[in-house]
């Protein structure tokens, strides 16, 4: 199997190389490193990768990384974009996700301490799925915690909801919860029913529905 191609963009050389090393160790082939938004866009144009890992704050200034990530998502639908951010605010993540949650991820930089988490997210995004930092989902859930419908969920159901929102696959969620996939499917039907959402067999659409619900748009 040909290794997945990846590009790493960060103005800090230590972070760039550190991330590239984790990706390489995890089976990616890092084909380019970029120090700023322009280099990133050039590299992507030269050879569209399966995955671009992008620092949200990059030269030439402000959140140029986020802007570049949005550009990539718009121009290269086949490129997965994983944004590394220092901001917990869900607003950034939701802007990045936009209308769809395929091939996109938003991870806080403090996750870089766990290579497995970064790789897990990288693989999900590269494979066409989504990865939203648990802390960001936590923020959204916290904001909705007083919602009547959310309080109808059991603790276990709430945990499953968070994992769904983060973009994990059914199998991964079932594994984490220590239940069978079948049981999880039943549980998610209950969760969606309690929230008044329509269950969707498509994972990405399901994630989006949950995120929109958590952001308040589906309320």
């Amino acid at each position, binding site marked *: 199997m040909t290794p997945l191609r990846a590009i790493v963009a960060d103005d*800090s050389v230590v972070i760039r190389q550190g991330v590239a090393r984790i990706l390489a160790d995890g089976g990616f082939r890092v084909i380019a490193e970029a120090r700023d938004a322009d280099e990133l866009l050039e590299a992507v144009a030269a050879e569209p990768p399966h995955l671009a890992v992008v620092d949200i704050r990059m030269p030439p200034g402000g959140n140029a990384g986020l802007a570049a990530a949005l550009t990539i998502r718009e121009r290269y639908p086949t490129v997965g974009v994983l944004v590394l951010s*220092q901001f917990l605010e869900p607003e950034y993540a939701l802007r990045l996700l936009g209308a769809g949650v395929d091939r996109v991820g938003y991870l806080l930089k403090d*996750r870089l*301490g766990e*290579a497995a988490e970064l790789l897990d997210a990288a693989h999900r995004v590269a494979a066409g799925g989504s990865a939203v930092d648990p802390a960001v989902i936590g923020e959204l859930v916290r904001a909705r915690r007083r919602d009547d419908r959310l309080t109808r969920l059991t603790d276990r159901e709430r945990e499953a909801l968070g994992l769904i929102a983060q973009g994990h696959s059914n199998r991964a969620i079932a594994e984490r919860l220590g239940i069978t996939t079948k049981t999880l499917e039943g549980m998610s039907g209950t969760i969606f029913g309690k929230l008044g959402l329509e269950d969707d067999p498509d994972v990405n659409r399901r994630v989006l529905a949950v995120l929109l619900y958590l952001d308040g748009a589906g309320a």
Partner: protein
Amino acid sequence: MSRRRGLALAAGVVAFAAVTTAVGIASGAPPQFLVADLVTGLTFVVAGLAAVWLRAGSPAGPMLLVSGGLWYVGSYAPTGQPVVTHIGFAFEAYYDLVLAALLLMLSSPAQRLQPRPLIVGLAAATVARSLGRLLLQDPVRQFPDCVGCPANPFALWPNLVAFEAAEFATNLALAALIALVGIVAFRRLLRAGPVFRRARWPILIAGTLAMGGAAFDRFEYAWTTATAAPLVEVAEPWAEALGWLLFGLRTLVPIGFLVATLRLRSAPGPLGPFAAGLERSGGAGTVGDALRTALGDQSLDLLRPADTTTWAAENGERVALPEPGAGRAVTLVGPEEQPLAAIVHDPALLEQPELLEAVVRVLRLALENERLESELREQLQAVTESRERIVSAAEEERRRVERDLHDGAQQRLVGVMLSLQQARGSADTEAVPEAVRGQLDAAVRETSEAIRELRELARGIHPAILEDEGLGAAVAALARRASLPVEVVVTVIGRLPRLVESTAYFTIAEALTNTQRHARASHATVRIAHVGEALEVEVADDGQGGAEPDRGSGLRGLTDRVLAVGGRLEVDSEAGRGTRVRATIPT
């Protein structure tokens, strides 16, 4: 003249009058003549004392007192005692000389004894008449049939022809010169400005009449000497009435002086209307008008110091102060070394020192007030501007610190964490002791925690989302993190100036913090809306209320922050009825 000296002089004159009256009684003078003589002289004394009291710096007081003393000298002429009779006869009417001098002085705007030749001529004629009467006349030898006439012990060259010639000449000269004094005084009165005329007309009219009477007196004397016939043929009782009239005219001078002095003193004070005029006036021009009205001097100019040497007139023109002797008087308002203004006015106003002083005092208060007010305004403006600059700079500083934390310290910590994590990967062999691997794990966890804490710190200092996504998103994030349900209603479209957004943001943040800490509320609402040219943000809760802006440092700081950008903060926190904090921030 000091009041004490004035009193002493007056006492001397009164004593002299008493002696004179006693001598008059002893020599059998008619009582009505004695009384009239006594009263006339005392009139001068009273006016003189009044002048000493009310016009301490003026020579009018002593001059009037001396006239009173000289008045009684003439009263010795009819006593029949050889020495005093002839001294009295020779030195009578010297008061006319003093009164003429007084009149010339008071009619001169500069209070000077002018014209000099006139007064010198008058003095010379008066002295010449005295010498003629003293040295050339001896009634015993010249009028042998004069029964009871006392001999003149001073008559060195008794000669009737020479005496009569001298009498004629000197009285004629005196008549002419005294008449001239009256004319000069009257013409000066007619030509004077309104201030001067208002102040002096009683004394100058009285003086002119008195001089007229005295001139008639002297002329009649000269006429009679020359023709041995009366000038005016009138039958009794008119002759006697005319005598009394001429006699009484002299008293018009002290009476006129008294009237003029007391009139000015008791004149209704113009200060009330002046103060009202000042109150109405905004600029220097109208202050000048108020002054002109109050002092009755239309020629008055109000000058303000333009720089160290020149002055600015009311129309803004640069002018110099008038030279001394230019016929204008200058009164400075305020300290001499640094006057607030100069009033250039008719010198006659100096005759009303009380009025002038009072007006200057009010004006000084008004000008000082005006100066302080404008200083205060400037200071306030400067303070307001500097406060806004300080807040703006602090805001910029917060943003810089936030950026530095994210792009500097936090990036480095992430780098450290990655290195640690790599080291941990490499250490995953049997060769590395378990403890070291555990320590590396702990180091990675701690670093991750440090990054999280740094993120919270940076967000508290200045949230990046406020600058990136605007007030609405930043406030939504605030609401999301609040420990109670917060409804956010934003009706602002687009971005606002940085300082406006950050002031609104921190106001809401602080108010929400207060709500969560103290209000015991179950719900809060944040409203952000445009109201006219301002942004209005409101944080309301359903808590216990009772928040006091002056007590809690949070609300105090909030007020300062909002005031600093020219806004205002209202806190409505009645106990038991929730708290509502509303900031209005100009955009």
